[in-house]
């Protein structure tokens, strides 16, 4: 990309605006974008929790009990709650991206966005269902 920025210096009379640091607060769609970017921090947080959990699991039943106690800390419960909402948001926006990136045609007709995103949701539901089933059987 060869921009004409160098050339522009010689046009001191052009008026240029700077994008403000708070640009993302100007519009709901921008804010939504920023929240989605932010959600990756919480996805990372979940990964860390999972790793800690695995670590505790390896440390034997005692270590695992201790880990479970630690999870009951109100601060962690709140943090986990917020993370859950962000991860949910992350997943939904990610799933809805599929029809944007992939054009699926059936007999020459482009499938509607909803139908292209649907398999994602179906898989999500199925896997969640399986996990719930496994948990219930244990409990």
């Amino acid at each position, binding site marked *: 990309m060869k921009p004409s920025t160098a050339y522009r210096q010689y046009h001191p009379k052009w008026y240029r605006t700077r994008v403000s640091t708070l640009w993302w607060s100007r519009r709901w*769609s921008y804010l939504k974008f920023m929240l989605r970017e932010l959600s990756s921090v919480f996805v990372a947080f979940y990964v860390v929790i999972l790793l800690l959990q695995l670590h505790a699991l390896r440390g034997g039943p005692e270590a695992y009990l201790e880990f479970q106690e630690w999870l009951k800390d109100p601060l962690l419960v709140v943090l986990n709650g917020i993370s859950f909402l962000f991860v949910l948001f992350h997943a939904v926006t990610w799933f809805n991206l599929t029809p944007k*990136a992939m054009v699926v045609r059936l007999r020459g007709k482009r499938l509607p966005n909803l139908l292209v995103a649907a398999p994602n949701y179906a898989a999500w539901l199925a896997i969640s269902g399986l996990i719930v089933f496994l948990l219930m059987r244990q409990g």
Partner: protein
Amino acid sequence: MAETITIEVARYRPEQEGEPTLQSYEVPFSKDWVVLDALNYIKDHVDGSLSFRWSCRMGVCGSCGMTVNGEPKLTCATFLSHYLPGPIRVEPLQNFPVVRDLIIEMTDFLEKLQSVKPWIVREDDPAPAKGEFLQTPEQLDNYKQFSMCINCMICYAACPVYGLDPQFAGPAAIALAQRYNLDSRDQGEQERMDVLSQHEGIWGCTFVGECTEVCPKNVDPAGAIQQYKLAATKEWFKSFLMPWSKP
């Protein structure tokens, strides 16, 4: 019903002021008037020094893009009645340098557009023996949506990535590259990929998605960019797994 409506227009006269100021005008209100009609009324009857671009007044030429009450709009397709009781603020498109009043400098966009070769590229240059390349309606359908672009730059005005980093190729240029890539008569995909697989190309896009929301022609540039990313990733994997295969 209101008889008149107030239009606040951004004025910038570089020979007399250092930054834009707002000037208010009262114009007659008519329910079938668009913002561009109001501007033309001002130009013809109130203040001939007001400068702005327009041509077709029917959403075809793409030259009348401005910021209306903070949103990038084609002013010939934006009705006054939508903003009752007013006032309506009209400013130049965001993210571009302002030359005068509502006129922005668009060389940067034109250069980017040209860099992606928005025309049919053929390796076998001589025209086909039968006089034209044939194309089925399905093949046309593949790229038709992206071909509706009128180069109005409204998507650039809505794109925060372009605002923050003017090196970014931007929505319309990428959508138009994709328009030709998807054309069955075209053979220039690789050349365009060389330009657009750079960081300032498709990877600059963080998928805010606002370009698609504001496009007056339903081009869906955000979709084009994500499809492009997918294609680039596939190609990268292929060259990684099968380095001997020619792209």
